[in-house]
């Protein structure tokens, strides 16, 4: 519905905005919870599934921001390809599916301190810089056409370089992962 409203180029109404906002906070809450579970769970398969939740939530966030193509790409590439790869990685590298107790470093509290410290610094900086900045009320969704024009004109060099990168990664990964 948000998509349709945005698509007409009309600004969101009060209700539309309220719905979008509620959606966002719901999604963000679920995503943060799932991310926390992901880095603390003692079961590798569960961690992968929690990551799936986070990735879907991020895709939904893109939709709210009017970046539909990025959302679709996120679903196709991340939820489709990357998750399957990760799950294959989990399956192929361990016989045991279930809880394990040896996944974390002993000194994980250092990691916790670093993360909380960084969050404090980043949160302060963001609040200071963009305190009550609103997204533009007449925010237009970004369409595939202009994006492709942009990629195939201004960003044609990185695009071509990316194609070489994918080919090189493919060749190298086949060599490294194959059995001799």
């Amino acid at each position, binding site marked *: 519905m948000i998509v*349709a409203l945005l698509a007409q180029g009309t600004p969101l109404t009060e209700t539309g905005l309220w719905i979008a906002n509620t959606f966002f906070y719901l999604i963000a809450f679920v995503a943060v919870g799932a991310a926390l579970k992901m880095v603390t769970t003692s079961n590798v398969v569960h961690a992968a599934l929690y990551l799936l939740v986070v990735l879907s939530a991020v895709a939904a966030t893109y939709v709210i921001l009017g970046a539909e193509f990025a959302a679709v790409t996120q679903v196709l590439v991340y939820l489709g390809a990357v998750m399957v790869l990760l799950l294959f990685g989990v399956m192929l590298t361990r016989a045991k599916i279930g809880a394990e107790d040896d996944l974390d470093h002993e000194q994980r509290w250092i990691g916790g301190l670093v993360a909380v410290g960084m969050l404090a610094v980043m949160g302060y900086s963001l609040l*200071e810089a963009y305190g009550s900045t609103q997204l533009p009320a007449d925010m237009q969704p970004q*369409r595939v056409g*202009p994006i492709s024009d942009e990629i*195939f*004109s*201004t960003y044609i060099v990185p695009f071509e370089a990316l194609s070489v990168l994918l080919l*090189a990664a493919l060749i*190298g990964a086949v060599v490294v992962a194959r059995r*001799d």
Partner: protein
Amino acid sequence: MSILASLAPAIAQTTEFVRPAIDWHAFAPELVLLAWGALVTVIDLIGGERTRRFMPSLTGIGFLLAMIPVLTLWSQNDDLPRVLFDGAYMVDHYSLVLKGIFLVSAYVIVLLSSNYMAEGDYYDAEYYQLIAASVLGMLVMTSARDLISIFIALELMSIPAYLMAAWRKSDLKSNEAGLKYMLMGVFASGILLYGMSLLYGAAADTRLVEIADAIDTGETTPIFTLGVLFTIIGFAFKVSAVPFHTWAPDTYEGAPTPLTAFLAVASKAGGFVALVSVVLFAFPHQWEIAEPVMWILSALTMTVGNLIALRQTNIVRMLAYSGIAQAGYMLAPLAVYSKVPDLAQSSIVTYLLIYAAMNLGAFAVVIIAARKTRSGDIESYGGMFRYAPGITVAMTVFLFSLTGIPPMGGWFAKFQIFNALLSAETTAATVLAIIAAVNSVIAAYYYLAIAKQMWFLPAPDGDHSPIVVPPALMAAVAITVIVTIATGSVGVGLVGDATDFVELLASP
């Protein structure tokens, strides 16, 4: 249906695609390498085992072919700089010199690899394809002037390297080298990208010049500080600056030795190019944040690198730590870039050129010596003058150059760094110059210890049979010796008017 209908007017608004004007000549080095790399890959696919032994020569020819457009671009001096995509891609003297350094280094690395790969029964054809891909990333990096190009070039440079570090598949050490390098590299990319996203948010543009203008507020806000810091830390991992260096010695020791040369020289230089471009072109007004960070990184990197290098008994690890220490020297001019931007840029480029020559040379000698001794211990170099005088003389040239004794290139490289630091005429810069000088003296101790081992001490097992040096390795040593001595000798003449090179590079 209703949604589709509502979309119709918006779809009708889609603008006409305008074909970008592309200066093909400016792209020629990249295009030649890309086309040649594709050709080599196809030849390998069709030829299989029959063409396998030609792969090193073919790849090497590709690097030399890509040199031709670099030279023709250089010869059309008046057309430089060539600006493409509104400044997102730039071909100027700075990028052409660097492209030359990368292509010649890559050629030398192919020479170093050919015997090692052929004799070790590795997947050699694919190895050369990955080297070519990685070098293509470096070529793009030298000209990239916007965040997306820089990021993609950095990844194109690194991802093949992650895989090649694990190339000795049956060796656990090599596997671990690949794993550590990959995890660290991807993590560093994440931090770098977060910094870049903040910069993009401030500028609403990915081009470096636009970012420079956008954050030119005359004051430092926390969000810019964060963007600048994260970006620099991301690059600090890539160039193995202390305290983000821990992956480097492990990766260097575990990876195949020719690849170690590639990582320590070409990959590190690529990271430096990205760092220099971003700092000089995107943060010219944010020097109050960037300069102190660079000062600390530089001082820490050279000191810690040298102190740990002192204790090494394995020559590859020693060269790895010495490479870290030299990264510290190369970071030093960035601690004064606001005062002397042109001098900082040219002194780093000079150092990169000479660094590439002398370190590749040292690695060539290590690879040659390992063919006989099968060991990387410094002790095994004893008595080498008795049975391999030519190699010993070549290694002495490289070691003297690394120490900074004239007329070898390393001396000129250090001179340029000190020149940049002292021209800034600030107390902090002078202190950094003193730290660098003290470090040069520490470094002399362990470099000259190897020379002493080779010239004066006896061979550990009394084995004086000569080393058979294959022609490819001989050529690699010859090229690096010539460049090391030539740059130093030219440097002696240039000291009077070293400004020429600076002005050339700084020509807008």
